[in-house]
């Protein structure tokens, strides 16, 4: 008996209701009564009536009992642990959770055994409660729906109403996701800014997050932690700039060539080839950057007497540039193709060369779209993580030198949040503050780009 059996049981009950609904409708029909809808709509109606509320209660209990219990269980944690400076709710809960699952690491303190026994009992009770609630809902409300069936009943309309509301509900998920993102980021950021002043975060020139544990443990690093995000933003800017230096010329010239010079065959070969570049996972680019490009650049640099760090902004930016070529070339190609043929005709009719039509007519007309494509590529570069983590390093140097190792906002977020974190600590919270700024920046860029594209579309409609 577990959650899965219950789920299957609920499905079976609703199937049963479908059968009854269908059968009743059929028997009405057999009595030569004219039904309002096809019989199976009556079945579906009853089945939906049964499954929707019961499934809702099922999920509700499943999700929220854990949250409730993890708060209640704190009663069982001894006072001295609760009040000790090292108290960490996550770790305590993990300890109990492991005991519940029967995973033991050495000797258990007594309270863990007691708490885990309590937890197991609660879990069982909650499962029984869930059984009781969900099944009675499935049977009870299903019966209410079943009683609705009579000759005049417009079951199809009711079923459609229910389905349309379900469709509408699913569109809420997108909103919920956004709300989830915003809340998770904003709350933690607020807590961060309660510890670290926003001015330090926004204008500080050193980024050196430290675990509070490390500081407290007297590792000689007291007071070293500093949360000035400027080096991260400079790093992000530097790498994005390098990426743009690679991708903008290549992307634009490719787009121009493909849309104006290439014949059909060249187009059908090279366009998909370029798009492959956007489909390669970033972790592959990261590996390529770290193992192939960075050593090449180091060796190339030392040949001409330059000292290139083994993890350099240049290598990461360069590979990122390759990755975003198709973002620029594809979208630019689209907007160039959207320039009306009549304008090209006007140019050629006057005796312009292709070059002249492109530079004097097409590019100016397509400029807003091209700019939008570059903005989207920038936002993509800013949000890119793996290449930076693998190839640019994690050293938060405040440097504009592309040959240095730098780090970016995204790379820091990931490194801080990978593995075990001390919740509550300024270091962990700083990742959320970084994420908040990242979201704000990319949203502004996205808004602006979409706005430009929309303006552009209107111009030619």
């Amino acid at each position: 008996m577990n959650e899965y059996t219950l789920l299957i049981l609920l499905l079976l009950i609703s199937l049963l209701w479908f059968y009854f609904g269908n059968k009743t409708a059929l028997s009405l029909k057999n009595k030569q009564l004219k039904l309002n809808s096809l019989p199976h709509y009556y079945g579906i109606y009853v089945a939906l009536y049964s499954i929707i509320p019961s499934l809702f209660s099922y999920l509700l209990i499943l999700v929220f009992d854990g949250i409730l219990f993890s708060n209640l269980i704190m009663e069982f944690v001894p006072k001295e642990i609760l009040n000790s400076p090292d108290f960490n709710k996550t770790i305590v809960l993990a300890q109990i959770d492991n005991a519940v699952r029967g995973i033991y690491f050495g000797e258990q303190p007594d309270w863990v055994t007691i708490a885990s026994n309590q937890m197991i009992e609660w879990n069982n009770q909650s499962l029984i409660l869930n059984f009781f609630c969900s099944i009675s809902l499935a049977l009870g409300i299903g019966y209410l729906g079943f009683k609705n069936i009579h000759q005049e009943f417009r079951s199809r309309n009711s079923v459609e109403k229910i389905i349309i509301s379900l469709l509408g509900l699913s569109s809420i998920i997108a909103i919920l996701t956004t709300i989830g993102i915003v809340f998770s980021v904003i709350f933690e950021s607020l807590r961060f800014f309660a510890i670290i002043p926003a001015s330090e975060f926004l204008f500080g020139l050193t980024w050196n997050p430290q675990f509070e544990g490390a500081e407290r443990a007297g590792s000689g690093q007291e007071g070293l932690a500093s949360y000035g995000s400027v080096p991260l933003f400079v790093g992000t800017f530097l790498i994005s700039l390098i990426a743009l230096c690679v991708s903008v010329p290549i992307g634009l010239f490719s787009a121009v060539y493909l849309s104006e010079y290439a014949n059909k065959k060249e187009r059908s070969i090279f366009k998909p080839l370029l798009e492959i570049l956007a489909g390669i996972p970033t972790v592959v680019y990261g590996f390529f950057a770290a193992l192939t490009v960075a050593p090449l650049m180091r060796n190339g640099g030392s040949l001409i007497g330059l000292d290139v760090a083994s993890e350099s902004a240049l290598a990461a930016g360069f590979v990122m540039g390759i990755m975003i070529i198709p973002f620029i070339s594809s979208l630019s190609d689209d907007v160039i193709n959207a320039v009306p043929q009549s304008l090209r005709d006007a140019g050629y009719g006057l005796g312009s060369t292709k070059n002249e039509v492109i530079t004097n007519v097409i590019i100016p007309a397509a400029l807003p779209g091209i700019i939008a494509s570059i903005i989207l590529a920038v936002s993509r570069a800013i949000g890119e993580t793996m290449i930076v983590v693998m190839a640019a390093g994690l050293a938060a140097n405040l440097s504009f030198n592309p040959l240095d190792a730098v780090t970016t906002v995204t790379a820091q977020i990931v490194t801080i949040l990978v593995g075990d974190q001390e919740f509550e600590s300024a270091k962990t919270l700083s990742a959320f503050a970084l994420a908040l700024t990242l979201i704000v920046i990319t949203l502004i860029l996205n808004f602006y780009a979409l706005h430009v594209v929309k303006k552009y579309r209107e111009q030619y409609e």
Partner: protein
Amino acid sequence: MNKNNSKMLTADEASKIVASSVIRRRKKDARLKTYGRIAIGLAVSFLIFLFVSIFSKGIPGFFQYYVTLDVYLDRDRLDPKGDLSPESLYNGDARSIVLESLYKVINPKGRKEKKAAKKIISSNADVRISKMVLDNSKILGKTISITFAVDDDIDSFLRGYIKRETPSSERRINDTVIKFVDKLSAENRISYKFSDYILTGSASRSPEIAGIKGAFIGSMLTLAVCFIIAFPLGVATAVYLEEFAPKNRITEIIEVNINNLAAVPSVVFGILGLAIFIGVFGMPRSIPLLGGMVLALMTLPTIIISSRAAIRAVPPSIKDAAYGIGASKLQTIFHHVLPLAMPGMLTGTIIGMAQALGETAPLLMIGMVAFIVDIPGGVTDPGTVLPVQIFMWADFAERMFIQKTSSAIIVLLVFLIFMNAAAVILRKKLERRW
């Protein structure tokens, strides 16, 4: 007409001027064309370079060196309890049996040489013997020849990455080991063949026995969860927004929202998973279910946007025809619009799934980075995924991991190519329809 102008050129004068400028202008034109060609050439050569560099490392990664030994499978030593249970075999002495058969070939003298000899065979050799015995207990008590993977340093030596000429102190393997390896080669006991481990092995810290099976299954499970959640939700949202949503503030907000979600960097979804799913809902870390949910939210915008486009592309005449014979709106949509839009919606979904398959950062953040040896058996078992495995292996120092990482990348790329090919075929089908 302006007859009195002296400056307006006559047609003859004009065409002379034009003719004189043509050569220069043609050159400029040719230059732009060349720039375009160079740009495409560069982009394509980057692509080729990338593939060549990955494949040249990755193809050898599917192969590795083995040593063949004649092993006497001593019943008492292998199976001390005598019940052929895994525990009994685990407690048995397989390791020394393997070493002894090795010593028989290379005759190490003294403790130092024996220590060197131990370095030759992968530490996993005993597991191989236990497995063979578990599969077929009849072999106990016989002498049979078995191939074992060589240790990764020996492998690198045999591939020529560790050079004989390098002074012994700077090599990872010393002269004695090299002497033994030469001896084994001379007796034709060293072979180079398709790796037993790369496709069927699990994560391991020893590169010679590390494989991608666990990560691969983890990826499949994660992707399955992602699809099961994202596809119905995406299609339902698209149908609602395209066909039912009243044009009001709320739907406008939803639309703006979806566009913005599509632009949010993937790390942010990792944060969402961490803070909401793990933090608030108390889901366990590292499980494919959680990974799939996070990826589903990430791919949802892609699916919604492409599904809406597909629905919009269904000719209105088809809807009119259905309405004309008295179908309700929902019937029209489910019977006519959705089947016609399905290839387009699937195309978008496959592209979204392909993105999800390659996604690393958010999964790292929800703990799918854990060093997981076991192969996940379900969506609630801890697991890892291919890109994360690639990321972890890329970080390890052993030379052999470079090849294994590249091999894993090849597997990932092959999968992506399949998915994209499916998308292309679907799109072709869609185009043929109208």
